[in-house]
């Protein structure tokens, strides 16, 4: 019998009678992390890591949420469950499910490089691995973290020396804080869009080492902050809100910025190739490290990635979700999706 099955509500474990990241109401939901396409309202009960819980509470309001630490075993019905670091955003997890000696792992979203904030990804040995493949094509190969640090600070320092604001679009949970963590605070002050500040405050209260930031409010004296870094949601970059920064230099941090066409279409001055998902080498390395013989792929270039895995000798399948699915062009269906790589189903701004 399969440890996990794929239903129109999400991934389901019959032995434990629970769903993982379901998108329709179910009695018991296990969440890999707090991004809006994984954590949805309307479930009777929730289970997440203790590190992911504050953001999930912040976003979903009053819910019945139980927490678990990384690596802590828990018996749910006939299934033995544990959560393991996925390295995607702070508190994000892969979920290991064991039934009768057979082990399946749901990756959630993950990246294999250490971003300095999230608990670093660890391989979990399993028989079957359900892997995301948002960037499952060989053209995606990320810029090393150190190089990104130099690029972002170099851009900021240049703008600051010209007295211009640096307006950077980054997804409010995860990417925004990752950028902050890379910044050199000696260059100038860091301002934030309200949506970014809210999540940042939740993470700061949890004890994450984040630099001081100032929320942009209508009465903030912008002249006194000339040359500041402004971190906003990608959608805010095109809004009237962004105009108050005048002749600012603009940038976006996203894995999609690896492609020149998308970068140019986005129309910002800079595009930093920074993703919280695994790149092509990362995906291949991660799958190899699990030792799994069976791999299911989901989210992204699933058809191509599955074929590639089959040619590498894996027994591979596709899990479809209720999002744009396998469509190659899916990330262009709405402008925000080009940038909000973490939320193909709808970004929370």
């Amino acid at each position, binding site marked *: 019998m399969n440890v996990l099955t794929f239903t129109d509500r999400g991934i389901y474990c019959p032995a434990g009678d629970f769903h993982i990241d379901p998108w329709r109401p179910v009695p018991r939901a296990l969440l890999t992390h707090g991004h809006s396409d994984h954590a949805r309202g309307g479930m009777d009960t929730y289970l997440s890591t203790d590190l992911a819980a504050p953001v999930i509470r912040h976003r979903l309001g009053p819910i019945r949420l139980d927490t678990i630490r990384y690596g802590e075993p828990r018996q749910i019905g006939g299934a033995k469950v544990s959560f393991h670091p996925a390295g995607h955003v702070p508190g994000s997890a892969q979920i290991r499910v064991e039934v009768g000696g057979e082990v399946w792992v749901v990756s959630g979203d993950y990246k294999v490089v250490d971003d300095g904030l999230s608990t670093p990804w660890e391989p979990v040995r399993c028989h079957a691995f359900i892997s995301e493949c948002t960037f499952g*094509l060989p053209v995606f*190969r990320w810029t090393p973290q150190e190089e990104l640090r130099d690029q972002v600070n170099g851009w900021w320092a240049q703008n600051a020396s010209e007295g211009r604001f640096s307006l950077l679009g980054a997804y409010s949970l995860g990417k925004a804080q990752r950028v902050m963590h890379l910044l050199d605070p000696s260059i100038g002050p860091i301002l934030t869009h309200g949506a970014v500040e809210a999540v940042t405050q939740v993470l700061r209260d949890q004890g994450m080492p984040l630099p001081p930031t100032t929320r942009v409010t209508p009465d903030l004296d912008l002249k006194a902050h000339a040359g500041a870094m402004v971190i906003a949601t990608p959608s805010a970059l095109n809004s009237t809100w962004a105009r108050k920064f005048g002749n600012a230099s603009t940038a976006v941090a996203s894995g999609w910025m690896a*492609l*020149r066409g998308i970068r140019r279409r986005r129309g910002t001055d800079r595009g930093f190739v920074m993703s919280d998902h695994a790149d092509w080498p990362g995906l291949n390395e991660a799958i190899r490290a699990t030792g799994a013989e069976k791999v299911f792929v989901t989210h992204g270039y699933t058809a*191509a990635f599955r074929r590639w895995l089959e040619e590498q000798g894996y027994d591979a399948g596709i899990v479809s979700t209720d999002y*744009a699915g396998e469509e*190659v*062009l899916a990330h262009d269906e709405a402008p925000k999706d080009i940038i909000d790589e973490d939320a193909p189903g709808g970004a929370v701004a």
Partner: protein
Amino acid sequence: MKDFAALYGRLDQTTRTNAKVAALADYFRTAPDADKLWTVALFSGRRPRRTITATSLRDWAAERAGLPLWLFEESYGIVGDLSETIALILPPPSKDSDQPLSYWIARLRELSALPEPERKAGILDAWDSLPGSERFLFTKLLTGSFRVGVSQTLMTKALAQATDQPETEVAHRLMGDWTPETTTWARLLHEGEARDDSARPYPFYLAYQLEDPADLGDPADWFAERKWDGIRGQLILREGKHHLWSRGEDLITDRFPELARAIDWLPHGTVLDGEILAWDGDHPMTFNALQPRIGRKTVPKSLLTTAPVVLMTYDLLEQDGHDIRPVPFQDRRQRLEALLTGLPPEAPLRLSPPVPFATVDDLREERLRAREEGAEGLMLKRRSSPYGTGRKKGDWWKWKVDPLTIDAVMVYAQAGSGRRANLFTDFTFAVRNGNELVPFTKAYSGLTDAEFRQITAWVNKHTVQKFGPVRQVEPVQVFEIGFEGIQASPRHKSGVALRFPRMLRWRHDKPVNEIDTLDTLREILAAHG
């Protein structure tokens, strides 16, 4: 290559014109001469010849990256650019090279002379020596398709700053059929004068599209004439020879031998600006008649009889060897009239007649008459204006007639490339013929980015069948298609071919059973073909 890649990075990282000009000017002040010369050549469309096929390049890159060809193709479909796909899928380089741009272009030339195995080894080695955007740019050179967001005007401005010369002088020097092999940086930009080369054309002055003639101000300040529908040409008569240049800076002297006879009637040291038109003795023939003469290097005798050409002349740029471009248009026009008046009908030159008008309303009426006059609209020129360089707003306006239109339904969609990769932007449209839909044209432009995204989402959900990259879609979405001309075409199932088709409007309001029919298309052909 590092300097050049850094320049490319600066150009690519900004959308602001001033920042681009500054980046180029910095580069033209500091880079080695040979590199600068190649950079000017590349940015003005003078590319090295393509010597290695795209197929070889993709085979070699996929093999080197250890990827099956299908996965390369899949990736190419997403990236939308062959060179970029190659640069991205190859493993990071194991070496780092300090060689300049000119070295890699010379290296390319060496490699293309070698037999296949050595050529392949050389390319693989180059890829392994160049990181990031250097590798991308090198591959761009290989594929012979080099386009960056730099217009000729922008580059001219930067060169003028870097070499401390007026823009008009630089623009003039860059004209003509030079290549980096036939000149040097010093000769191209510094030595002598632009006019020293007797075949060198003047930069063309280009008009902007006029939205509303009421914006022009006092009608008395303006001169009107027809906007002729042919090939813009500059005829140079100097030192006993004649040279004919197209607006794209192609030397087309031999394609239009009729114009050689201009020498019989006009003095040397004369340069004319005009439109090459197929001419039936009294009137211009349609652009369709001229079509067979474009793109052939030599002209068969039959074509000289069925589609003889004249130069419909509208400006005089040089007289008695003097550059008179700074002289006001009105005076240039008078001198032109004096020069051409009284020429016999066998002279291959006509004077573009003025279109008299007193008021803006007169102009509106004249514009509507354009098609019956064999023209595509009106040209409006400020009487006091000098002959400028490039496209500048203010003194020359074109006011084209409204395009011909037809309502049609989308039947096929294909993704674009480059900036439009991952978006469905190339569509095939059909008209009705009884119960059948007959495809009759493709169109690529006219929608906003937001509309392209919207239609892309729609195509994804309403694909009936896939043929490689082409999607057959449900025939539901109706568009108003605009075009400038139509001709009979036995190659096409519909029997017609359109000129400059584009999408004017997405007709959300129109159901597919109300689109136009093949008969409508045939009527348009009968009236305007």
